[in-house]
């Protein structure tokens, strides 16, 4: 079944390619239908908890195996991808006006590449899919983007490619180092994990920097974040959903799967500076989100804030913090997808993204307002949403670790960093409430008066929100089973 599912995702672009390009509706529904089928397949596969592994040896001497595996780390991200993609496809039916077939082709391609990136257990294949997933996004922003899309596309490509090229150099370095030490030339992740004991620490530091740089650009962590606001603002709404919900998670996933497992000693050594960078980045992103007037930029910068907290969780050596971070990947994926979807809906109706051009949507679009408010609750980390659950676990881990550092080694800097991180919740509440206030209740401006007859959400649009909200609340109330499964998985990491 695993092979069948992968094969289906592999053939999805080809199937779409063969459909006639005049029948745009057919292309869209076929795309969505197959994606829903894939969701069902992935869901049954993961609930059966069977071993999903596929390995095909390309070259034994070069250690090139096309090795895919579903493990505890990519399990939920695969489900998130499978869940978000049909919604993105559904959104694109309304939002994309030109070259519809090409758009669906690009969606199918990025589906394929993202799933393969998450599943790849061979470093070279991981890199190949990671790098190649730039290409569909380049086209999505470039062809269907806004007015300033060229700058956005090239910024996106150049930033991401710079990181990945350094990562590739580091991958080759690790492989050759492993060859020199053990005499085995392999790109497989599993044998390379032993390098953490054999490779000298100075070499590990360089490789760590290259890997971390690649992932920090993708996450993104300031000061490597400047591509993100451009890309988000210029991308069409489905593209933004995809970017925020899944592509950013690729960075965080890479960080846990490769950086934390390959270089635990370096992470241990540089824990404080790493935590400080992530917390500063989160504060910076949240503070910038507070002063933006473009609603898409508010959400884009808030992503930087949330991802910063997520990364804080990942580098904190505590079970609850890491599992909180994994939970936060799901939480942020669902929430930001919903937020970008609602911004797309607003832009579709009112053709503006300026915060002050809206107002009193609560009376003109009551259904939208209710759903949007519920989503913002999750962004604000209010219980019982998933946003709250994930950030609660992160802070629980971070604070308890910091307190332990105070007690055992009289180290006060950790508690300062974790305390500063708590400020992001405050900032998050501020910018979210500002957004809600001006959007839903703000003073009815002259411009907004003209839009009294704006159409409220229809059934399809409501159902997109409903699906996302359902997961946000269900997982927010009962995150335990995900936390438990992560706790088993991170046993491999040496956590004190």
């Amino acid at each position: 079944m695993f092979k069948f599912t992968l094969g289906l995702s592999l053939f999805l672009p080809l199937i779409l390619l063969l459909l006639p390009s005049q029948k745009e509706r057919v292309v869209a529904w076929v795309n969505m239908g197959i994606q829903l089928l894939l969701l069902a397949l992935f869901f049954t596969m993961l609930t059966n908890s069977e071993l999903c592994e596929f390995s095909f040896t390309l070259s034994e001497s070069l250690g090139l195996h096309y090795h895919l595996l579903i493990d505890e780390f990519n399990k939920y991200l695969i489900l998130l991808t499978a869940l978000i993609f049909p919604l993105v496809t559904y959104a694109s039916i309304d939002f994309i006006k030109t070259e519809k077939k090409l758009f669906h082709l690009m969606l199918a391609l990025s589906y394929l590449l993202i799933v393969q990136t998450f599943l790849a257990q061979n470093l070279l294949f991981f890199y190949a899919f990671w790098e190649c997933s730039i290409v569909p996004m380049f086209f999505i922003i470039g062809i269907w983007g806004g007015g300033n899309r060229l700058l956005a596309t090239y910024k996106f490509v150049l930033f991401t490619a710079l990181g990945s090229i350094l990562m590739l150099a580091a991958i080759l370095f690790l492989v050759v180092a492993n060859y020199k030490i053990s005499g085995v030339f392999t790109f497989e992740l599993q044998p390379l994990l032993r390098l953490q004991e054999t490779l000298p620490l100075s070499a590990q530091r360089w490789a760590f920097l290259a890997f971390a740089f690649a992932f920090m650009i993708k996450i993104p962590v300031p000061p490597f974040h400047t591509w993100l606001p451009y890309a988000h603002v210029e991308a069409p709404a489905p593209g933004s959903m995809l970017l925020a919900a899944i592509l950013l998670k690729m960075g965080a996933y890479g960080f846990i799967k490769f950086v934390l497992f390959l270089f635990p000693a370096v992470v241990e050594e540089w824990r404080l500076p790493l935590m400080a960078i992530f917390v500063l980045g989160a504060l910076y992103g949240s503070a910038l989100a507070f002063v933006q007037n473009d609603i898409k930029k508010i959400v884009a910068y808030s992503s930087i804030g949330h991802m910063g907290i997520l990364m804080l969780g990942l580098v904190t050596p505590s079970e609850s913090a890491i599992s909180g971070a994994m939970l936060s990947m799901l939480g942020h994926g669902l929430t930001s997808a919903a937020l970008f979807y609602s911004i797309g809906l607003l832009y579709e109706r009112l053709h503006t993204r300026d915060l002050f051009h809206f107002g009193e949507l609560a009376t003109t679009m009551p259904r939208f307002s209710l759903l949007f408010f519920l989503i913002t609750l999750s962004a604000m980390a209010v219980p019982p949403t998933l946003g709250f659950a994930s950030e609660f676990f992160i802070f629980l881990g971070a604070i308890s670790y910091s307190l332990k550092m105070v007690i055992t080694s009289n180290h006060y800097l950790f508690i300062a960093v974790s305390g500063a991180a708590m400020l992001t919740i405050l900032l998050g509440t501020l910018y979210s409430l500002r957004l809600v206030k001006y959007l839903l209740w703000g003073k009815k401006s002259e411009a907004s008066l003209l839009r009294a007859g704006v159409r409220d959400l229809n059934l399809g649009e409501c159902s997109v929100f409903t699906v996302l909200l359902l997961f946000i609340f269900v997982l927010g109330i009962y995150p335990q089973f995900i936390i438990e499964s992560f706790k088993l998985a991170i046993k491999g990491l040496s956590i004190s």
Partner: protein
Amino acid sequence: MNIFYALLPENILVLALLLFPMIEVLKLKSKALPLTAFLLATVGALAVLAIHYQQALEVTLFYGHYQVSPNLQAIKFLLTFSLLPILLLREQIFIGHYKYYFLLLALLYGSMVMISSGSFITLFVGLALLSIPLFPLILNGPIQKESSESAIKYIIIDSTLTALFLLGIAFIYFASGKMDLTIISSDNVLYRFGCLLLLLSLFIKLAIVPFHPWSPDVYEGCDNRILYILSVTVKATIVFVLWKIFANTANFLNYPWQAIIITLSIASILVGNLSLIKQTSIKRFFAYSSIAHMGYITLILVVTNVSIETIAIIIFAYFAIYSISMLLCLLPLGNLLASADQLSLLEQFHQRSSTRSSFLSFGLLSLAGIPPFPGFWIKIVIMGYLIKCDYTLVAVIAFLASYIGIYPYFKVMGGQFFGAIKH
């Protein structure tokens, strides 16, 4: 071993070369005749080369001046094969014209002599045979004024480098008293100077930085078939000759050539990729792309801890992949280059022809080295061998330099779909 049999691929070419003037003398007007003769000659040569390879034919002819071995036959096979795709590259000029095929076969004969050469004399003869047919070939470009300028530039540069090459040989002969490629190294200053001249003259032919400025000018006047030959067949021959010299003279590497090669290769990758950014002409774009790509392949020459066969295989694969990528770029362009040569012509190419623009995109992505296209895998192999040979820093710099190339290739590719960036 029969000399005729060992030289059969070359002999077939000579036979065809003799046949072509007969067509002119007998005034045979058939349009298909030159093409048939060309195809018969190349396919015949390919078949014989394959048989030689199968038989593992290994002989030395003419007192060591000429070598035939399975490896060399395989290389010749690649070079011959790389000529064939030009039949697919359509342009109005030359179709059915016997001179065109005559010159191509002469060029191929030159490159075969170069590959098989066992001494500097044969090498020099081969170099001359390779260079001279290119002059009329370039001269017959699409735009008369530009192509004559290109041809003159080409012949001047080529005669200069041939002179340098000859001077290098003379110095080496003076110092060592030998002409064959298995020279004994000596610490003589003249000997070293001769080697340096030899290396640099071949680098001029490869258009390695800083000897590159002639190549975009020459490319600009060519039609796209000659562009393809200049960047694939000719350059592959020169790289294989470099490989031959390096492989045969183990002591060659004791001198600081490695430092020279590394510096110049990195410089070509950097300059080639940086110059790509501001190009407005398609042919100049491919010229700079070719400069950058030659930088990668010359880097493999400094790798010493693997067998020479491995290096030959890498060069072989590199040129096979490079020619495929070039073809993916050139074939969809079709007649576009015959009329004008502006990159802006490619804007909105997707709306005009979506299939052709998709193939062009694949070619550009492969040249840029984006996975999963073949251009990426071969670069990985080169970088892997460099790191294995402890040139980690060189490999990292080459990687970062190839990063610069991503922007222009994506710019051209994106331009087909959504217009170019406005400066």
